[in-house]
């Protein structure tokens, strides 16, 4: 069996998704990953954040690998481990060897794990004594272990016991069987997905479908030694979109449970900010890359074409299908989101099970893109992405704000988003 050959994303162009093991995956960069995780981790004194960050990953990985093993017909434990190792690397999470794991648990250690490596390489030293940053992998591997040995979801406990961010040379996790299972739920998979098509906007030369296809064909290949994916100058992962949506939703719920409704604006603000971080680093990185120059730039005539170009690329990184409802300008950008990954994930929950009534990440993201174009004027100068520029765009007095004029999570048939200059 060639595990690597069994592992490939299936682009669903009518949904704008990249599916593997029944799970839609989305591309994000390490800045976004750390920002969202750290924002949730800030609440560690309020509720046990591992129950959100680790357990959610465990649920998703369990469903993902159960589905993948079923689809491939692989029943041999060693072969299943090889598949997990291959998926882990294919998605840019790093390199792992599961040889020492058994149905009773065991230890996994690696010097290369996305969160730990990029944190250590990017940020100042983390305070001594804090737990490691590899929450996602911890849960992901616990869920994978359950799937490998056909164990029930929630039957494996886990702990991260070493981390690069604590000066250790490796990330180490321990896994063990639990007498009392964790209260976990199977993943929502492709959720309440929508289908649609990429609509070519008439007032632009930007060829939406060609750009989407071009981005789909780009080689995001993990490094052979580390399993980390470098692209556009940042470090990328293919992560189940359900993970981001559910940790955002669950964090909001836990915060409200603990502190009341008054805390909601603060949590929302954090989720909106994660969209700014993503626009700035991931999409900003894309807009200043050789890939963009080759694929999009030849068709750009106006500043608005930068918006069209980035919209065309989004389905190829798994975020759903985005189309303009009218010609954008610096005063207004109105978009329709089809199968936006966060909405699709959360729509699969019953209204009683969710609190978020829209995707705050999308609000920050699209406002952030507008700021890059009309405030930073990326169309006429190359930008230096540093703290100064970030504060200029997203500091006091944000330049743009976005609101959902229609939201599937409020019962509307579709998601519509309007970006306008912030009122000062």
């Amino acid at each position, binding site marked *: 069996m060639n595990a690597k050959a069994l592992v490939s994303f299936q682009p669903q162009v009518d949904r704008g998704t990249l599916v593997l093991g029944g799970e839609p995956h989305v591309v994000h960069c390490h*800045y976004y990953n*750390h*920002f969202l995780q*750290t*924002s949730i981790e*800030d*609440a560690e*004194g*309020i509720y046990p954040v591992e129950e959100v960050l680790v357990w959610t990953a465990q649920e998703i990985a369990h469903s993902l690998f159960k589905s993948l093993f079923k689809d491939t017909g692989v029943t041999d434990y060693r072969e299943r481990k090889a598949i997990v190792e291959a998926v882990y690397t294919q998605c840019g999470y790093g390199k792992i060897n599961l040889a020492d794991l058994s149905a009773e648990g065991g230890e996994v250690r690696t*010097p*290369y794990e996305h969160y730990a*490596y990029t*944190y*250590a*390489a*990017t*940020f*100042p*030293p*983390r*305070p*001594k004594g*804090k737990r490691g940053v590899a929450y996602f992998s911890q849960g992901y591997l616990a869920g994978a272990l359950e799937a490998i040995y056909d164990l029930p979801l929630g039957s494996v406990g886990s702990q991260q016991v070493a981390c*690069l961010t604590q*000066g250790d*040379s490796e990330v180490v996790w321990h896994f063990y069987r639990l007498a009392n299972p964790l209260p976990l739920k199977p993943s929502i998979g492709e959720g309440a997905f929508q289908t649609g098509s990429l609509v070519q906007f008439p007032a632009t030369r930007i060829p939406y479908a060609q750009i989407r296809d071009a981005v789909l064909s780009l080689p995001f290949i993990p*490094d052979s*030694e*580390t399993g980390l994916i470098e692209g556009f100058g940042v470090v990328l992962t293919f992560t189940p979109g359900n993970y981001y949506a559910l940790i955002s939703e669950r964090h909001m719920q836990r*915060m409200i449970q603990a*502190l*009341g409704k*008054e*805390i909601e*604006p*603060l949590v929302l*603000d*954090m989720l909106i*900010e994660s969209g700014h*971080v993503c626009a*700035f*680093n991931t999409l900003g990185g894309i807009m200043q890359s050789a890939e963009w120059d080759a694929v999009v730039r030849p068709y750009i005539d106006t500043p608005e074409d930068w918006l069209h170009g980035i919209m065309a690329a989004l389905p190829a990184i798994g975020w759903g299908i985005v189309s303009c409802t009218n010609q954008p300008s610096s005063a207004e950008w109105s978009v329709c989101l089809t199968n936006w990954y966060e909405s699709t994930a959360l729509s699969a929950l019953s209204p009683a099970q969710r609190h978020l009534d829209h995707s705050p990440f999308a609000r920050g993201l699209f406002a952030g893109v507008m700021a890059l174009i009309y405030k930073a004027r990326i169309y006429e100068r190359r930008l230096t*992405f*540093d*703290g100064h*520029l*970030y*504060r200029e765009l*997203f*500091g*006091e007095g*944000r330049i743009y704000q976005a609101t959902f004029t229609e939201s599937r999570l409020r019962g509307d048939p579709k998601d519509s988003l309007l970006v306008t200059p912030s009122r000062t």
Partner: protein
Amino acid sequence: MSTWRSWIRTLLSPIKSKETTQTESSKSSIDTEKPTAPPTSSEELDPSKLYPILPLKEWIIRNISPYAWDRTVIRSLPELSRMGIATTMVLAPKPDTELPLPVLQVLLSSLESMYGVKPDLREILRKTVTV
């Protein structure tokens, strides 16, 4: 020793961490181990008096980011709760919201743990009075 393992070792050296702090765009989201700003002089303020909280919020928003204030509050909530401070007082302080010095010190401590920044509280409060 592989190339990538060597790199991470080099990157983790204390000499280079300063460069990182100055150039990275998303420092604001991550905890830091050591403060880089001069120490606060809040010790010289009167612990028995009440002080306005809004100037500190505005200073953080202006000098770090709006989000830094949100994070500071979230980090501080468990301690503030133990002190019996109502969440609403720190979530959305009004110009006349005044709180005991220890409350402001809790917020400053959270700020320092996350951003390595410890502003001079006296200076912030003095400027407000002048204005």
